[in-house]
C-alpha cells in the first residue's frame, strides 16, 4: 500500500503529539507521587526537626511535652523487629523452600499458594485480633514483647514466603540440573547452589517486609501494647511500646507540644526505615559481588 506524502506527514505528527501527551501524563503521575511524599516529609521536618535532639532520643515519655522522649518506643521497635525477624525469617524461607522445591504441582500446593496470596492482603488489624486471642490469651504471653513479635511475624510471613519463592524461582534450571547430574540430592542442591543464588532476593524481600511491619500500629494496639512506658523491656515477657503507637498517642493529644513530638518521632521512624532499606541494598550488592567474584 502506498501512502501519500501529506497523509503520512499528518499521521506522523499525530503520533508525535500522542507520544508527547503520554510522556506528560507519566511525568505528572510521578510528580504527584513524589510531590505528596516530599510534602509529607517537609511538613514533618517543619513541625518536628526542632524537637530532634539527643535528649529526645534518650528520654522516656512524660506528661510535659518538652521533657518527653522516645527512648522506650525506639528500643521497643528495634527489639520488636529483631524478634519478628527471628521468628518470621526461618519459617518464611523454610515454607518457601518447601513450596518451591519439594511440593510439586499438586492441588494441595495450589490451595496453599492461593491462601498465602490472600493472607498477604488481609488487613493488619485482623492479625492483631488473632494475636490477641492466640498469643495474649490462649498461650498466656500477655501484652508482652513476645506476643507483639509473634503477631508481627504472622503479619509478614505471607510477604516473606511470596518474595522468597520469587527469588528461588529465578535460579536457572540449568544450575539445578548441573548439581543433580553430579550426584547431589535435593537438599545438597538447595543448600549449595539454589539458596546462595536466591539469597540476595530473599533478603531484600524480607527486609522490605520487616520495614512494613515497623510502621504498623493497628495490630500492636489490638494486642494491647502500652502507650505510656517509662522503662525498657527487660525480657521476652516484658510490656513494651513502639514508635507508631507513641506517634498515634501523641497525635491524639490536644497540646501542640505533643504534635511536634509526634512529627519528630515520625522523622526517627523514617530514619529507621531508610536504614533498613539501605541495609537491604547493601546486602544485595555484597552477595551479588561475591557471586560474580
Amino acid at each position, binding site marked *: 500500500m502506498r501512502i501519500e506524502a501529506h497523509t503520512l506527514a499528518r499521521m506522523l505528527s499525530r503520533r508525535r503529539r500522542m507520544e508527547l501527551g503520554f510522556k506528560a501524563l507519566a511525568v505528572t503521575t510521578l510528580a504527584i507521587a513524589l510531590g505528596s511524599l516530599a510534602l509529607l516529609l517537609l511538613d514533618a521536618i517543619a513541625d518536628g526537626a526542632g524537637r530532634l535532639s539527643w535528649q529526645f532520643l534518650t528520654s522516656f515519655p512524660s506528661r510535659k511535652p518538652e521533657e518527653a522522649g522516645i527512648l522506650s518506643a525506639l528500643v521497643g521497635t528495634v527489639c520488636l523487629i529483631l524478634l519478628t525477624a527471628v521468628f518470621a525469617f526461618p519459617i518464611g524461607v523454610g515454607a518457601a523452600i518447601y513450596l518451591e522445591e519439594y511440593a510439586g504441582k499438586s492441588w494441595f500446593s495450589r490451595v496453599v499458594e492461593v491462601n498465602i496470596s490472600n493472607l498477604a492482603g488481609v488487613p493488619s488489624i485482623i492479625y492483631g485480633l488473632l494475636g490477641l486471642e492466640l498469643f495474649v490469651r490462649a498461650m498466656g504471653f500477655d501484652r508482652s514483647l513476645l506476643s507483639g513479635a509473634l503477631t508481627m511475624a504472622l503479619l509478614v510471613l505471607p510477604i516473606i514466603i511470596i518474595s522468597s519463592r520469587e527469588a528461588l524461582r529465578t535460579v536457572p534450571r540449568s*544450575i539445578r540440573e548441573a548439581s543433580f*547430574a553430579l550426584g547431589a540430592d535435593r537438599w545438597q542442591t538447595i543448600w549449595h547452589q539454589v539458596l546462595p543464588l536466591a539469597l540476595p532476593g530473599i533478603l531484600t524481600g524480607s527486609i522490605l517486609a520487616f520495614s512494613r511491619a515497623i510502621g504498623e500500629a493497628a495490630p500492636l494496639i489490638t494486642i494491647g501494647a502500652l502507650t505510656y512506658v517509662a522503662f525498657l523491656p527487660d525480657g521476652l515477657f516484658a510490656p513494651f511500646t513502639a514508635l507508631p503507637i507513641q506517634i498515634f498517642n501523641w497525635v491524639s493529644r490536644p497540646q501542640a507540644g505533643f504534635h511536634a513530638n509526634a512529627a519528630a518521632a515520625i522523622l526517627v521512624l523514617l530514619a529507621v526505615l531508610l536504614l533498613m532499606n539501605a541495609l537491604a541494598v547493601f546486602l544485595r550488592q555484597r552477595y551479588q559481588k561475591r557471586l560474580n567474584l
Partner: protein
Amino acid sequence: MDETTALEVHDLNAWYGHTQALRNMSLSMMERRITAVIGPSGCGKSTFIRCLNRINDLMPGFRVAGRVLFKGQDLYAPGVDPIEIRLRIGMVFQKPNPFPKPIYDNVAYGPRLCGIKERARLDALVEESLKKAALWDEVKDKLHHSALALSGGQQQRLCIARALAVEPEVLLLDEPCSALDPIATGRIEELLLDLKKNYTMVIVTHNMQQAARVSDTTAFFMLGQLVEFGPTSQIFTNPRDKVTEDYITGRFG
C-alpha cells in the same frame, strides 16, 4: 579390543504429560565407544539421553516405561537410587552451566558431596580432572577466579572436568558444542576422542559432521522413533533407510 555392552535400552517409551516423546526404542551402546544420536529437532534425542542417567525424573509430568540396562542392572528397577546412577553416569549439558563459583570449587563440587574433605586429595582430583579435560594449562594460575570469567569453550571443558571429577564410567553429552564456535568445538571433539580410551560416551548432536568425525556408532531418530542404528561409517556412506539418507544428505531437517 573387546566389545562389551555398557548401556542397553529395551522398548523405551517416554511421555511428558500426555505427549509421547519416545516410542519403543531399543539400542545398545558399547563400552569405550562414542555413540552419536542425530535427528531433527523434537525427535527425542535429548529426552533419550536424559533417560540414561534419570535426570528427567526431575521433570514434572515425566513418565517412562521400558528398561535401561547399565552393565546388566536396570536403572528404572524399583529400589535403584538415581543418585548412585548419576555418580556412575555423568552428564554435560547443551549450554555450559558452570556454578557461579571459583573454578576450583566447580570441579571439587562432586567429590566434596561424596565426602572427600582432605585438601591434598581434592587438589589432586581437581588437577587431574582439569588435565583430562585439557583445561589445566589455561586455568592453573587462576583456580580461585570465578568460572564465569572463562570463555564459552573453556566453560564447557570445565563442565566436562567437573563431570569427570566424580570418576564416572559413562559420559552423556547433550549437544555440548551447540553454543560454541568452530575452534572451541574442535578442541572439545579432540578431547572426546582422547577420553574414549577410558570412558563410554553418548553424544547428542545437531551437527552431522561432528557425528561423523567423533562417533563409532550412530543412531538416527525421527519423531521419537529409532529409524536406523549402526556403525557411523555405514550410516553416513551407505544408509539402509531412505529417510536416513535424506536427512544426512540435507534434503530435510
